[in-house]
């Protein structure tokens, strides 16, 4: 059943898979983000209470949702690395960590920009903001741990274990922080029954969500390619690539 997966334990196969997949991800990301942003920022109706400043939602909400999903993706890669000892999965952990950290940082910055006109302050110690901040620290921890090792093979395994420990802890952190303090408005689009958001505002949001997911995928693929090249620089196939370039 897993036969199709095993070839990708070889770095060379994974490198060329990334190369083949990258244009698709990049193309979909550009199209969706352009559509979503133009629709959301120019044509969607303004919020009746928050006015035009609510339009930052089309950037903020996708980054906030995907910062968590990216961590989940990183933890899944780490689990694959831990269970099947696949080296490329550990490389993927190291490749996803900086991308996830940037997305989390974007969520925090756009959130601050939204908070200033709405709550009258850049930052409050609210549950969601705090768990997002802790998430950022956890990404940075995984990333720093990977780069602390000279031997990247050990570093990859260590970062993978750290990512898994983090994913076990994330729900505990999330709920303890939630219990501690909450001011943030509730989620509007995760309710499956009936979203509490107008459909003409929901569509650009969903398109942007999809676009950003594709963009994160594309960046992670590029980052994984770089990671493979850095780690396998002495291999003949990398040398050959270098000669061709």
């Amino acid at each position, binding site marked *: 059943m897993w036969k199709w997966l095993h070839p990708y334990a070889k770095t060379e196969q994974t490198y060329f898979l990334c190369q083949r997949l990258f244009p698709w991800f990049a193309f979909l990301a550009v199209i969706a983000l352009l559509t979503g942003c133009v629709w959301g920022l120019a044509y969607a109706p303004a919020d009746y209470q928050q006015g035009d400043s609510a339009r930052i939602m089309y950037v903020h909400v996708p980054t906030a949702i995907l910062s968590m999903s990216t961590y989940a993706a990183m933890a899944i890669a780490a689990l694959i690395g831990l269970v099947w000892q696949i080296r490329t999965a550990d490389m993927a952990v190291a490749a996803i960590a900086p991308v996830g950290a940037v997305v989390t940082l974007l969520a925090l910055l756009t959130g601050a920009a939204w908070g200033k006109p709405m709550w009258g302050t850049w930052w409050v110690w609210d549950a969601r903001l705090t768990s997002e901040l*802790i998430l950022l*620290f956890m990404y940075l*921890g995984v990333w*720093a741990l990977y780069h602390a090792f000279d031997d990247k093979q*050990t570093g990859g395994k260590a970062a993978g*274990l750290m990512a898994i420990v983090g994913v076990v*802890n994330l729900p505990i*952190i999330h709920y303890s922080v939630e219990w*501690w303090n909450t001011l943030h408005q509730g989620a509007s689009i995760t309710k499956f029954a009936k979203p509490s958001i107008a459909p003409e505002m929901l569509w650009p949001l969903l398109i942007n969500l999809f676009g950003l997911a594709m963009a994160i995928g594309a960046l992670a693929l590029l980052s994984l390619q770089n990671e493979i090249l850095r780690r396998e620089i002495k291999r003949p196939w990398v040398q050959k690539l270098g000669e061709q370039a």
Partner: protein
Amino acid sequence: MQGFITQMRRDMLLAFRARAEVFQPLLFFVLVISLFPLGVGPGPQTLQKVGPGIIWVAALLSALLGLDRLFRDDFNDGALEQQMLSGASLPWLVLAKICSHWLVSIVPLILISPLLALFLNLTADMYWALLLTLLLGTPVISLVGAIGVGLTVSVQKGGVLLSLLLLPLLVPLLIIATSAVDAAAIQLAYNGQLFLLAAMLLFSLALSPLASAYALRVSLN
């Protein structure tokens, strides 16, 4: 199990012979706490309000300071490799090290806490809550900390990295423990918080020795 007892006896003996090193986190703990009244002002009301948080943050930091010793000395002189090769079950050995670390570097902090409660003007109710949260919560620091130390033991100058890895994971501990003391300050029941802390303790007790043992195997290849 035999390995557990032997390992624990050895670690306690080593700690007893290096007493000066053991007292450093304790001194750090007292010093950090006596800095706060100087920083936030000596008003008894203010100190009572921020006291539980200060004691818990200081306990976290001084525990992190002492955590480095958990595996590092044994790693540097090669004893750790011998222990791993000895055939005894590694999670048990790790658990023995964690227990002796808790007894040696954290129990003194708990013993000195009545004095600090006086410094920070805590009421008797608050102090009992603080003591209970410290008893249930500090083993979690040692247990979760062991994973981080196991991962960073072969890294040169891993101290700052260790705090970057561990402090985010210990946030729930801080929140729940201080909320128990806050509840005690206004005469409310804090059983719920204590149960949560106990759950975290059991959860980390079950998983941390396995994860730390794996972390050590990764670090030592």
